C-alpha cells in the first residue's frame, strides 16, 4: 500500500500550487469570478499550458494522465486556491470527447485554444438522465438546459439530448445562453435551445455521460478537500490570534472540540476521495465509490463552512475575508452534480 503521490503528479501539484499562489490571489480571483466572463481567460490558457487539461485524459487519448489520481491532484490544488476557472466543464467535455474518439477537438481543448461546456441537466430533470426532455431531430436541438457550468464564453457546448428515447450527445456552437455569475463565483448559464443547429457526436451516449459525470464528481470532492484544508487552517490561525475576554479564543475548549471534529472529518474526506480516485477506472464500482465520496464531502464541506463562519464570528461573514469565499464554495459544491442526499440514495440503491 502506498499513499504517496507519484513523482509526476507531485511535480504537477507543486507547479500548480506555485502558479496559483503567485498568479491567482484571492483579490484578483474575486474580481474575475463575479464579472463576465466570470473567470480570467488568460489564466485559463496558462493553466492549460501548465498541463492541467492534459492531465484529465490518458496518453492514448491525447493527454498524459486520465487516472483518478491525476484528476484529484489537479482539483485539490484548484480548491486550495479557490480557482474560479471553468475547469469542471472542461473536465467533463474533454473526458466525453476523448471517450468518443474526437481527437481534433480533444487537442484543441487540451491546448486551451478552445473551451467547451457540457449541458446535461434541466430544470425539471434531477439526476436521472432518463428524465432529459431536450430533443434532437432533423439536425436541431429543442429544449432548455439549466445552470450549465462554464457556459459563458465557451466556444461550443456538448448537449445531452434524446432522440427516439435514447440519450445522445450533440455539439452546437450557436446556442443562445443567458450568462450569470454563481453565488460562489465562476460562471454558468441557462441554455435555450430553439431549433438550434447541432452535430450528433454519439446517438447513444448515456454511459459515457454517466462516466464523465462521475469524473466530475470526483473532481469536486478533491476540490473540496483542498478548500477545506485551507479553510480549516485559516480558522485555526484565526482562533490563535483572535482575543476575547483577554485570551485567544483558541483556549476555549468548546470551540477547540468543535473545530477538531471538523478536522477529523476532513481527514475522512481525504481518505474517501483517495478511495474513489482509485476506483474511477473500475466500471463495476466507480459509481458507488464516487457517490460515497461525494456524500461524505457534501456532509462535511457544509459543516466545515458553517463552523468556520461561526468560529470566526462577524469577520467570517464579510466579503473582504477570504474564508467567507471558501465557505461559500464549500457549500455550493454540494449543489453541483447531485447533492449529498442524492448520492446517499445511489449508495442505498447499490447496497
Amino acid at each position, binding site marked *: 500500500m502506498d499513499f504517496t503521490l507519484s513523482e509526476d503528479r507531485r511535480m504537477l501539484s507543486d507547479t500548480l500550487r506555485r502558479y496559483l499562489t503567485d498568479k491567482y490571489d484571492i483579490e484578483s480571483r474575486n474580481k474575475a469570478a463575479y464579472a463576465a466572463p466570470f473567470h480570467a481567460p488568460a489564466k485559463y490558457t496558462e493553466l492549460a499550458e501548465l498541463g492541467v487539461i492534459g492531465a484529465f485524459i490518458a496518453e492514448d487519448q491525447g493527454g498524459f494522465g486520465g487516472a483518478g489520481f491525476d484528476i484529484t491532484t489537479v482539483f485539490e490544488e484548484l480548491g486550495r486556491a479557490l480557482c474560479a476557472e471553468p475547469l469542471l466543464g472542461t473536465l467533463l467535455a474533454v473526458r466525453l470527447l476523448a471517450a468518443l474518439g474526437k481527437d481534433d477537438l480533444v487537442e484543441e481543448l487540451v491546448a486551451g485554444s478552445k473551451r467547451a461546456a457540457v449541458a446535461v441537466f434541466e430544470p425539471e430533470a*434531477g439526476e436521472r438522465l432518463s428524465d432529459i426532455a431536450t430533443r434532437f431531430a432533423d439536425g436541431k436541438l429543442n429544449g432548455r438546459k439549466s445552470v450549465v457550468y462554464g457556459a459563458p464564453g465557451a466556444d461550443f457546448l456538448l448537449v445531452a439530448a434524446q432522440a427516439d428515447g435514447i440519450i445522445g450527445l450533440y455539439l452546437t456552437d450557436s446556442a443562445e445562453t443567458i450568462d450569470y455569475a454563481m453565488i460562489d463565483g465562476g460562471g454558468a448559464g441557462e441554455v435555450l435551445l430553439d431549433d438550434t443547429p447541432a452535430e450528433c457526436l454519439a446517438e447513444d451516449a448515456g454511459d459515457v455521460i454517466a462516466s464523465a459525470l462521475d469524473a466530475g464528481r470526483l473532481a469536486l470532492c478533491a476540490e473540496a478537500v483542498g478548500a477545506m484544508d485551507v479553510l480549516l487552517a485559516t480558522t485555526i490561525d484565526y482562533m490563535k490570534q483572535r482575543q476575547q475576554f483577554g485570551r485567544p479564543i483558541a483556549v476555549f475548549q468548546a470551540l477547540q472540540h468543535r473545530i477538531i471534529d471538523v478536522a477529523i472529518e476532513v481527514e475522512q474526506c481525504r481518505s474517501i476521495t483517495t478511495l474513489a480516485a482509485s476506483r474511477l477506472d473500475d466500471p463495476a464500482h466507480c459509481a458507488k465509490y464516487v457517490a460515497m465520496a461525494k456524500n461524505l464531502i457534501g456532509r462535511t464541506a457544509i459543516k466545515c463552512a458553517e463552523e468556520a463562519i461561526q468560529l470566526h464570528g462577524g469577520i467570517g461573514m*464579510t466579503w473582504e475575508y477570504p474564508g467567507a469565499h471558501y465557505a461559500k464554495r464549500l457549500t455550493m459544491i454540494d449543489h453541483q452534480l447531485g447533492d449529498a442526499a442524492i448520492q446517499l440514495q445511489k449508495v442505498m440503491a447499490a447496497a
Partner: protein
Amino acid sequence: MDLQFTQEEDAFRAEVKAFIADNLPDHIQRKVRSGTPLDKEDFEAWHAALNSRNWLGATWPKEHGGPGWNNTQRHIFAEEAALAYAPRLVAFGVSMLGPVLLKFGTEAQKAEILPRILNGDDWWCQGYSEPGAGSDLANLKTRAVRDGDDYIINGQKTWTTLGQHANKIFCLVRTDADVKPQEGISFILVDIDTPGIEMRPIRLIEGGHEVNEVFFTDVRVPASNLVGQENEGWTIAKYLLTHERTNIAGTGYAMRDLAALKDLAARTMRNGKPLSEDPLFAAEMAEAEIDLEALRVTNLRVLAESETGAATNYESSMLKIKGTVIVQRLNGLTRQALGAAAAPFPAVDLPANALTVPEDAAAAAATYFNNRKLSIFGGSNEIQRNIIAKDLFRG
C-alpha cells in the same frame, strides 16, 4: 393548563391581520418574500403605516405614542407581521433607544427625540461593537474625553446595521480608562453629520450592504447628548439586553419559512416526483416542523411566565439558540431543495424569467449565507451557552 389564546387575543390577531393586509404595500411584501434587500423608503413606509395606528413603538407607553400592548399582544403582532412578509422593524430607534430614553433620558431628551423616532424624522443606528471587541463588549476602546461642555470622541465602531440610512447614532464610549472595564463606559448620542465621522460599507458574504464601519476622528459632541450619568453606560446596555424579549425566538419567521419550504418542495420535481415525497427530504422537513412546534410552545411558556415576571437569562438564551438553529436549518433545506438552481448570484441583473427558479426562492442561497449571522450577532450562540452555564452550574 390551557394552550388556547383567549377570545380577546384571537380578536386582536384578526385586527393585526386585517391591518397588515390593508397597509403593507404589495411591492414591499414581494421584496421581503423574494429576499430582495429593502430600500430606505420601504422601511420608512412601513414604519409610517404602523405609526399611523400607534403600533410602531410596541413597548412604549401610550402617553409617548405606544399602543399599550402586553407581551402576548406584542408576540401576536410579531408573529403575524412575520407571516405576512412585512419588513422587520428597524429596531435601533423604536426598540432600543426609545426604551433607553424612557428609562434613563432627561425630560428634554424624551420630548425632543422620542417623537422624531416615531414620525421618521430620525433614523438611528447603533455604535456598540468594535473590531477588537465582538462578544467582549466591556473591552471597547472608543474614547470620549470631556472638553468643556463637549466630549471629543476618537475610535472605531463596526457592524453598524443600516448605518448607511442613518442620520443619528447612539454609542457606547469609554469615558474612564482607569477603572474596571465595565465601570468606565458611557452612552452617548451623536449626529452622523458631525465633522470627523466617516461611515464605510462592509460587504457581506452574500454580496449585500447591510452593515458598516464607523470611524470617529476628534468628533465633538455636546455633553448634553449623554444619556444617564457619565460611566453609567454598562447599566444602560444591560437594561436593553433584558428589556424586550418577546420576539427572541423569531418563531413567526420560522413558521413562514417552513410553509414556504413545504410549498417549494411540493412544486419541485426530483427524479420524477415532487421533492416533498422524497422520504429523506420529507423526513428533514418533518423534523424541522416538530422542532418548531416544540419551540413555539416553549416560547408561549416563557411568554406566560413573563406576564408575571421577566424572562430569565436562561430562557432568553434558550430561545435565541433554538430559534436561530431552526431558522438556519430551514434556510439550509430551502437552499438544498433548489439543487443546482440555487447557484445564480442574485446581485446579477438578468432578463425577466431568465431563471426557472420561482422568484420567491431565487435568493435562497443568499438568504442562507446571510442568516449565518443569526447565530453570531446579539451574543453568539456560544455566548448564550456560557450564560446558561452560569445558571446551570451555579453553587
